[in-house]
């Protein structure tokens, strides 16, 4: 299991498009991904779940990946956040 805390950087937060991109990216991997925000934990491969986090700019999320390719999964997801989901 690998964990990583990240911060939402893009201005509009995790709205529909970034959520779709996140889920699409996570689904390429065999590992499971859970995303935690406060006391809420959702499946990172499910679009409704990720959208329900309603994560705003500067909010903190914890990524929890579990499986054979967990390291690569975390790196790719982190990249998405770093690049602000190619939004700005």
């Amino acid at each position, binding site marked *: 299991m690998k964990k990583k805390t990240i911060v939402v950087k893009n201005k509009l937060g995790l709205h529909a498009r970034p959520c779709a991109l996140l889920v699409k990216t996570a689904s390429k991997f065999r590992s499971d991904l859970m995303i935690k925000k406060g006391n809420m934990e*959702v499946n990172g*491969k499910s*679009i409704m779940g990720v959208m*329900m986090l309603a994560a705003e700019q500067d909010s903190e999320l914890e990524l929890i990946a579990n499986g054979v390719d967990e390291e690569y999964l975390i790196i790719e997801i982190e990249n998405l956040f770093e690049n602000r989901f190619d939004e700005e």
Partner: protein
Amino acid sequence: MKILHVKEFFETMNKDFALSVLTDPKTMENVIQEGHLHRPGLALSGYMERFAYKRIQVLGETEISYIQTLPAELLYERLKEMFEFNIPLIIVTKGLSVPQQMEYLANEMNIAIILSRLSTDRLISGLTRYLRMYFAPQKSIHGTLVEVYGVGILLTGKSGIGKSECALDLLERRHRLISDDVVRITHTDDRLEGTSVNDIGYFMEVRGVGLIDVERMYGIHAVQKKTTIDTQIELLLWQDNIDYERIGLTNNYVNVLGVNLPIIYLPVSPGKNVSVIIEVVALNHILKNFGYEAAEVYQRKLQERINLKSRERSQ
């Protein structure tokens, strides 16, 4: 551990409990850490052992009239001794007036006092309910919650196994959706209550189609805000080498927030009608509640038949 700020408590409940603040605004920063109430009669009379000071202290008519019988100096000493404990909040009911000394000391020692116009009985029952809900253990899990024939069923399983599709099929059969994908579970009064985590509405993702609005599509009767979770059904990909339950004499349970929740491991394969099986699970649950266990009844009848045959043979 969840905490409740006095300020937050006041802001959310001031209408319901007819509250008004007596002490300085800075006392509103105090933090309530326990979801129980305490009536500090014994502490007021001087017995401070085992004083449950972390709880909200409720003063009713009895306590206030007792305080008024105390000589001023003694009262000052008592209250001071009491207030040295870190009491977060004192609520005085029935709009009773608070002795000046008490108000002064509370401000000095940073203890919040809030007045309520409700009677002690009504305040205590309302407040107990509110605190129980607020401090109730809670978690959110990945799954879909539906109500089938009045039985709350939590569908779980890996992403893409078909939870949402199954829920759609159940909606088509006039059952109800509470939440798709993320379910918030609260443990109250020895049962598990499931709700949606937000109030955006009853939206659902259908793979290949996108988002749909269930309430719009199926009507208001197809959705519901909350339900008691009676049983969990874990959808699993069919695997040939796994032993699935065949008779139903043993019940499996999972521990969710300290409650034993019955769980059924349901193998799914393409083309299999899962929603019919879920209806069967719900009906069987109702029968079990009425004390009828099909597997046990069948076993008993089978045993009688066997006994009869063996008697015939020995004659």
